[in-house]
């Protein structure tokens, strides 16, 4: 019976040790989500408000650039907006995890949606990144000219909006890791 009590004591000690650690992880999770909301919302707004008109014109070349001119940028704005909305909704679950460190099923649901949103965000960000790279460098083989040489401020805007999105991707990876570590402890 003495060895049984010792074992029970060690299990209680394990539970007590992981409780505050899980709570700390849940608080970090909450703050990371807030940062991710700011990052993705900033990216969506930065890309969505692009509108540059050059002050001259000729017959052949357009002199107005907006994000809707390229469908990848539209997808980028939509993806970042969806991810921001999801993050706002998941704040509620995050607060729930701060209060109840032992919730397992809701953490798995959160990981599932986090993984899906990570995939969506990465898809949007990298598609836009491919087009931004093309806009900067062009491609001689396909005869695609680099439009950045004309539209400077448009180019700066679209390049800068990628930063927030990639930051959001990093934050999502850390969020999934945190949830997984919290799941594996008791």
């Amino acid at each position, binding site marked *: *019976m003495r*060895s*049984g*009590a010792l*074992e*029970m004591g*060690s*299990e209680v000690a394990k539970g007590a040790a992981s409780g505050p650690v899980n709570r700390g992880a849940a608080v970090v999770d909450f703050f990371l989500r807030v940062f991710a909301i700011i990052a993705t919302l900033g990216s969506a707004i930065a890309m969505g408000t692009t509108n540059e008109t050059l002050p001259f014109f000729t017959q052949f*070349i*357009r002199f107005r*650039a907006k994000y809707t*001119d*390229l*469908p*990848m940028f539209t997808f980028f704005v939509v993806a970042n907006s969806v991810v921001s909305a999801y993050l706002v909704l998941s704040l509620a679950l995050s607060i729930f995890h701060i209060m109840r460190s032992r919730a*397992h099923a809701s*953490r*798995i649901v959160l*990981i*599932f949606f986090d*993984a*899906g949103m*990570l*995939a969506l965000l*990465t*898809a*949007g*960000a*990298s*598609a*836009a*990144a*491919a*087009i931004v*790279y*093309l*806009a900067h*460098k062009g*491609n001689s*083989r*396909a*005869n*695609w*000219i680099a*439009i950045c040489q004309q539209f400077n401020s448009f180019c700066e805007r679209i390049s800068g909006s990628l930063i927030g999105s990639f930051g959001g*991707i990093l934050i*999502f*990876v850390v969020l*999934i*890791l945190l*949830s*997984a*570590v919290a*799941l*594996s402890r*008791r």
Partner: protein
Amino acid sequence: MEPSHSTKSNPETAILIDSKSAKGKSTAAPAAITATTKATPYRKGGWKRGVAIFDFILRLCALIATLTATITMGTTDQTLPFFTQFFQFQASYDDLPAFSYFVVANAIASGYLVLSLPFSIVCIVRPHAAGARLALLIFDTMLLAFTTAAAASAAAIVYLAHNGNQNANWLAICQQYTDFCQRVSGAVVASFIAAVTFVFLVVLSAVALRRR
């Protein structure tokens, strides 16, 4: 006081139930009972082993998908049988940096999947190995982001190649290079299948990490 049993630290634990403590709480007989829990880990790990086997099968599928994507994109090389002064009529994957990144990323993903197969087998053999599962989950998440980035950037270029873009004066090159376009589109589809499989792998590892 009923001592609880731990199945992890000691593979064999002796449970002693006193006649005093069995106040009708459990179905144990009032006499002192000694039982060993050596068989318990195998019984309790039933569903986790099933999850681990499914994880292994999904990993094989993802490996096939990424290998297909890498090889299909890497062997693109189409030369059109005519020429003019101004146009080049040869298309290969290294003409577009997004496609080069695609080949490299899918090759890295295939290499990682091959290396992670032993870890998956360890998780099948020992269903309670939380360390291996956590490591797999961490690397699966990073590879998910990596593979999705490669697939999406190649998809953006493929979309441009199919449709062109009037606003930027970018011509649709697929109308000339039909075979190149088909191969590249197929490679992108295979890579997206691998990315979706990675999402399921992450969720499976998370489900199996639970401690019952």
